[in-house]
């Protein structure tokens, strides 16, 4: 029997049946009770009809990774019921729609049939709405079973349906019916249980998905042109951004917009618009996923070479080609690092949390304008579309860094011939730029993807060409020094025998794995979380300090490991990949198991 507040609740329903609101009510009620928890939506690429799941994981220590095995299953979908039942751990509990007849199919779980079809008739006279309302009945049943606080359950429901009084009444009645039915028919106590912790562990915290967090980060970083083409799983970023901009970025005096949201005809146009806007001086951004990144490659190579700032958010999804749009991955790393032909390089930031999605979105704009280059925020579906608890985001205190932009008065001071677009005046590889429209007759330049020299002129002259691309390589080194150091967790003062590298959302499985390795296996491991590419020197130091190294990432080919090998002068020995590429976020036990195998086979 799991300890209180340590369980996985899984709800299996049919996509399009409106179960999302019900699942969120459960998650929010749990959250309001002060129990650390998070929710993951495991959904199909489909509008309606295919199986979909929602998983809630609660853990007193606040582990956020996915965990294998289900403690409490709500089975509502005939198409997935057998598979869902198989995932329940021995001693677990199943609540199922009565016609599924799951009782007795497994002797090691307690299965309870609920006549949802009959119950819904009692609360919902409107046949059209029954399919939706039935979900709230399981909220009541599950709430009672788990021992959720009824007041928090009602409050969570009321907050979700603010301003929709009629819907609230209907849904509250459904929750109440489920609650009462469970009290009358189900045995108590339930082995899977919630207890209100002595201290509210969620006090002051928020619950948000990474796409909304990145959107909010962009709003407070002053994004002024956002061009996009909808693509799963980045779409909700665009939607959230448009919503926040409309709310917080209208001129108080006139009500006019200090932003533009442009829905492009395709990803080529989306990034083209962002680049045009970045070139003209706006804080410009696009968001997309892997297939969009492939399409944007040509123009982003241009932006690298012609030095046009823009921010690209890549909410990564699984697989080559169309792949699985609703499954998560970290599979665009290698592609983005050198996206486009020729010698092209791009910086990447790897947010692991919604808080970092917020702060790094802001950092990305400063870096893009400072270094006059596209900057990639490498999110993923797991971060972008799932709900994560977080401390409230800090208001950004640092002023916006608009980079080296010469204004009319600067140009006048420099005089005719005093400005050339790609000259390295400061020795840091970063040239000065001007914005089109700057009056005064000085400062115009020609932006081209064709070979050019430091004066911005087309050139086929080897010396002039090489001088400029070597200057861009110097700029890359300056950029490296501006990127964040890795976050290293040390087991002790001396390097531990095991070193685990990771980045992005893989963090949560790794941090939990560190504690399992220590507590259950007596293995001390250090962990190095990579926050950015190009790599900070600290990453190389970590590699050199450890002999038994693991790189945990969510792709088949060990993409980050490839970049590490390419970036380090001496051979990276003993770097074992712990790779997850089935579309689901990694769990801590898989990481632990892989390390244990590695330890056994170590010489």
């Amino acid at each position, binding site marked *: 029997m799991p300890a209180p507040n340590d369980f996985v609740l899984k709800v299996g329903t049919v996509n399009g049946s409106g179960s999302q609101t019900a699942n969120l009510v459960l*998650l*929010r009620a749990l*959250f309001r009770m002060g129990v650390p928890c998070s929710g993951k939506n495991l959904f199909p690429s489909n509008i309606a009809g295919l199986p979909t799941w929602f998983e809630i994981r609660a853990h007193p220590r606040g582990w956020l990774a996915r965990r294998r095995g289900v403690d409490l299953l709500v089975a509502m979908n005939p198409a997935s019921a057998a598979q869902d039942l198989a995932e329940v751990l021995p001693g677990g509990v199943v609540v199922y729609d009565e016609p599924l007849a799951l009782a007795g199919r497994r002797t090691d779980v307690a299965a309870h049939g609920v006549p949802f079809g009959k119950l819904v008739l009692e609360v919902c006279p409107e046949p059209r709405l029954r399919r939706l309302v039935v979900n709230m009945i399981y909220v009541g049943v599950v709430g009672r079973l788990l021992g959720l606080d009824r007041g928090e359950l009602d409050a969570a429901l009321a907050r979700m349906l603010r301003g929709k009084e009629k819907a609230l009444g209907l849904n509250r009645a459904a929750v109440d019916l489920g609650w009462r039915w469970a009290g009358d028919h189900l045995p108590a106590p339930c082995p899977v249980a919630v207890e209100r912790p002595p201290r509210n562990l969620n006090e002051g915290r*928020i*619950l*948000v998905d990474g796409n*909304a967090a990145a959107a*909010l980060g962009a*709003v*407070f*970083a*002053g994004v*002024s*042109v956002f*061009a996009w083409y909808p693509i799963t799983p980045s779409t909700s970023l665009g939607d959230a951004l448009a919503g*926040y901009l409309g*709310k*917080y*970025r209208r*001129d108080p005096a006139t009500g*006019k*917009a*200090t*932003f*533009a949201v*442009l829905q*492009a*005809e*395709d990803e080529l*146009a*989306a990034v*083209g*618009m*962002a680049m*045009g*806007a970045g*070139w*003209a*001086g*706006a*804080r*410009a951004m696009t968001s997309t996923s892997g297939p969009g990144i492939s399409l944007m490659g*040509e*123009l982003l190579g*241009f932006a690298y070479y012609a030095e046009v700032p823009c921010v690209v958010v890549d909410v990564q999804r699984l697989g080559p080609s169309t792949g699985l749009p609703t499954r998560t991955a970290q599979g665009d790393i290698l592609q983005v690092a050198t996206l486009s032909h020729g010698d092209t390089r791009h910086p990447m930031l790897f947010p692991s949390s919604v808080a970092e999605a917020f702060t790094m979105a802001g950092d990305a704009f400063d870096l893009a304008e400072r270094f006059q280059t596209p900057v990639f925020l490498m999110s993923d579906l797991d971060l972008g579309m799932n709900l994560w608890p977080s401390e409230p*985001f800090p*208001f*950004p205190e640092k*002023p*916006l860094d608009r980079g080296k932009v010469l204004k009319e008065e600067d140009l006048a001071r420099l005089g005719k011939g005093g400005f050339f677009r790609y000259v390295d005046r400061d020795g840091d590889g970063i040239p000065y730029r001007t914005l*089109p*429209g*700057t009056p005064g*007759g000085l*400062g*115009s330049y*020609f*932006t081209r*993807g064709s070979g050019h020299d430091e004066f911005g002129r*087309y050139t086929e002259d080897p010396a002039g060409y090489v001088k400029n691309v070597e200057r861009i390589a110097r700029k890359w080194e300056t950029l490296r020094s501006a990127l964040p150091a890795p976050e290293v967790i040390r087991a002790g003062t001396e390097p531990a025998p095991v070193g685990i590298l990771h980045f992005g959302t893989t963090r949560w499985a790794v941090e939990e794995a560190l504690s399992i390795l220590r507590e259950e296996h007596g293995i001390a491991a250090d962990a190095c979380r990579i926050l950015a590419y190009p790599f900070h020197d600290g990453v190389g130091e970590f590699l050199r300090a450890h002999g038994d190294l693991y790189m945990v990432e969510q792709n088949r080919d060990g993409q980050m490991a490839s970049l590490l090998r390419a970036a380090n002068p001496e051979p990276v020995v003993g770097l074992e990949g712990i790779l997850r590429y089935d579309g689901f976020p990694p769990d801590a036990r898989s990481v632990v198991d892989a390390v244990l195998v590695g330890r056994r086979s170590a010489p």
Partner: protein
Amino acid sequence: MTAKVNRIGLPQDAYKGGKSTLCPGCGHDAVTASLIRVLFESGVEPWRLAKMSGIGCSSKTPGYFSSGSWAFNACHGRMPPVATGAVVANRTLLPLGVSGDGDTASIGLGHFVHALRRNVPLCYVVENNGVYGLTKGQFSATADRGAKLRGGEENTFEPVDVCTLALELGCGFVARSFAADKRQLETLLKAALSFPGTSVLDVVSPCVTFNDHEGSTRSYAWGREREHPVVEVGFVPHWEAPEVEIPAGEVREVPLPDGSLVRIRKVEEGFDTADAAGAWRRLREARARGEFLTGLFHLATGRPTFVEGLDLVEEPLALLPEGRLRPPRSALEDALDGLTP
């Protein structure tokens, strides 16, 4: 002797650019020369002009005029989205797109039609020679059916007609000219630059190296022999008073929002520049007959531009200070409150 200056005090030389590297006699150089005169005579502030282009011989030409203007020589076919982003970021810019038939009608066709749909403020000049020059003479998508390459190979496909396409997509300024018809071209350029939304000016601009032979339908000889202006266009800039009133009926006068005036006198009986569907039918008919119609085919004002539809603040987004870009702390608190379960 001091050089003649325009109304903002600049000599014509201020609108010149680098030396052309195109073939001597190229139609595009004639268009460039016309642009220099038009920008000078129109008194365009060079720093407001944004020269946008893609890839191809035509797309190189922004290097050959108005070196005091910013230029963005984008990837092949991608000029319209880049221009769109630029003019949204800074609505005071005057984007001039110079593109070719490969750039516009093949690789960039999708972007071209979407710029038209949106009515992006963009003067879009297509230097149309029916052929790929830089890759040495393949047909482009605007080549007429039955047109012949130098080696005698015949085009069997239907052409993409950028003018009928523009009419179909609601473009309010659709015109065609001929690089050798300097007077008409320059008047149309002035009007196109004053038009608030997307103006399309398709200029038949012969390629002297690969498509100026017998059997070509984009040669100088073919153009000179067949050019048939459907209307005669006059342009009165906003700073000049219109001359004496002309009796109604003979001339259609269309005021543009910047205060200038376009005067259209019918040459072909029954051709009405206010009637997009009629213009579309006449152009289709001309294609079937092998006619070369030029002039302003359609002019209609009043459709909001893409930028107008965005309900933006007056100042360019690109120049907004931090205080207007970053919302106050209270806004973040409000947003976070919405994320508290």
